[in-house]
């Protein structure tokens, strides 16, 4: 009577032990596979999370676009007789007003505009702020830097290996590469002027310079490390206020 349960207990323990080992083996394999995928492509789990957040951001940006289309649209054009210079000046003033109105209107992580870099196949929604939470959603605009359309430096940071890795290939940008920022109030095209490697605490590249409209992209460097930062600078070459 008492002899029957005795062999079962070790068998049950052994089965539980083996199940635990198999689970550990599967988990370890998944971890290693995740790391390998991160090296050859990007971190898949956070990429999936960021992809879903980008979908939400697209809706957020669509609402922002609609709001600017209603309230921020330029008034009727300058009188036909006005010179091209005054028309262009008027457009610039309107763009500046729209940029100023948007500069402090968005909370961290909210959609701000669309960032496109054809040379590295990037087309994504960027967000306000560079906090950890904001950067998990997309490239983030440095608070304290200006927005396109304003004199000064527009600063944008993005992940290189995780959360969609929007800036993974940012080191491949060369002088002359185009960068487009499509804001609710207009589109802005920049040309890369150069890049450099610096330390994380060197934010001098984000400082504005009077009379220039620059764009600065930053990301961790080298790939798979956060020891340094890569800074890509670009200069505004054209702007198209939204009708």
């Amino acid at each position, binding site marked *: 009577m008492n002899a029957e349960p005795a062999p079962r207990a070790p068998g049950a323990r052994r089965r539980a*032990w*083996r199940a635990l*080992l*198999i689970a*550990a*083996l*599967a988990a*370890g394999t*998944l*971890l*290693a*596979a*995740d*790391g*390998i995928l*991160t*090296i050859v492509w990007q*971190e898949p789990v956070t*990429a999936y999370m960021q992809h879903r957040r980008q*979908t939400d951001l697209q809706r957020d*940006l669509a609402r922002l676009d609609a709001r600017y289309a209603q309230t921020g649209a330029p008034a009727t054009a300058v009188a036909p007789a006005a010179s091209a210079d005054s028309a*262009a000046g008027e457009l610039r003033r309107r763009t500046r007003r729209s940029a100023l109105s948007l500069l402090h209107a968005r909370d961290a992580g909210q959609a701000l505009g669309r960032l496109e870099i054809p040379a590295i*196949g990037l*087309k994504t*929604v960027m967000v306000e702020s560079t906090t950890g939470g904001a950067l998990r959603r997309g490239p*983030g605009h440095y608070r*304290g*830097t*200006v927005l396109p359309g304003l*004199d*000064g430096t527009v*600063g944008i940071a993005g992940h*290189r290996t995780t959360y*969609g890795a929007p*800036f993974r290939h940012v080191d491949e940008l060369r002088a002359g590469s185009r960068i487009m920022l499509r804001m609710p109030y207009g*589109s802005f095209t920049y*040309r890369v*002027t*150069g890049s*450099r490697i*610096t330390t*994380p605490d060197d*934010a001098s*590249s*984000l400082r*504005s*310079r*009077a*009379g*220039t*409209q620059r764009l600065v992209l930053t990301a*961790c460097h080298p790939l*798979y*490390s*956060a020891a340094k930062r890569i800074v890509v600078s670009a*200069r505004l*070459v054209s*702007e*198209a206020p939204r*009708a």
Partner: protein
Amino acid sequence: MRVRSILAVLVAGMLLAAGVASAQDTTTEPLSDYTTTTPTVTTPPETPAAGVGGEEESNSGSNAPAVASQPAGSAPSSLAFTGADPLLLIALGLGVAGGATVLLVRDRRRSNTQR
């Protein structure tokens, strides 16, 4: 049979990882129509600096505004953290998987000898 089960779990894990990876699509649909813009206001293109490393630019514009839109001193004091360390993940994963495999093999041998 157990070896087959282990292999099945391994393959399922790899397929799951690959499935998650392939489900990603980095391109997104355009949100809004930017084609109806007003006439483009174009600033004269600057001659780009020569390649990587030529980042410093000259800003000597005689018609430049006296004050930039960004208040002095409001720029961030450091650059954002955007990195990760996948090698740590790989090492950790290989360690866990290797340890589990060794223990599984040892357990299997022990059960065989007991028979």
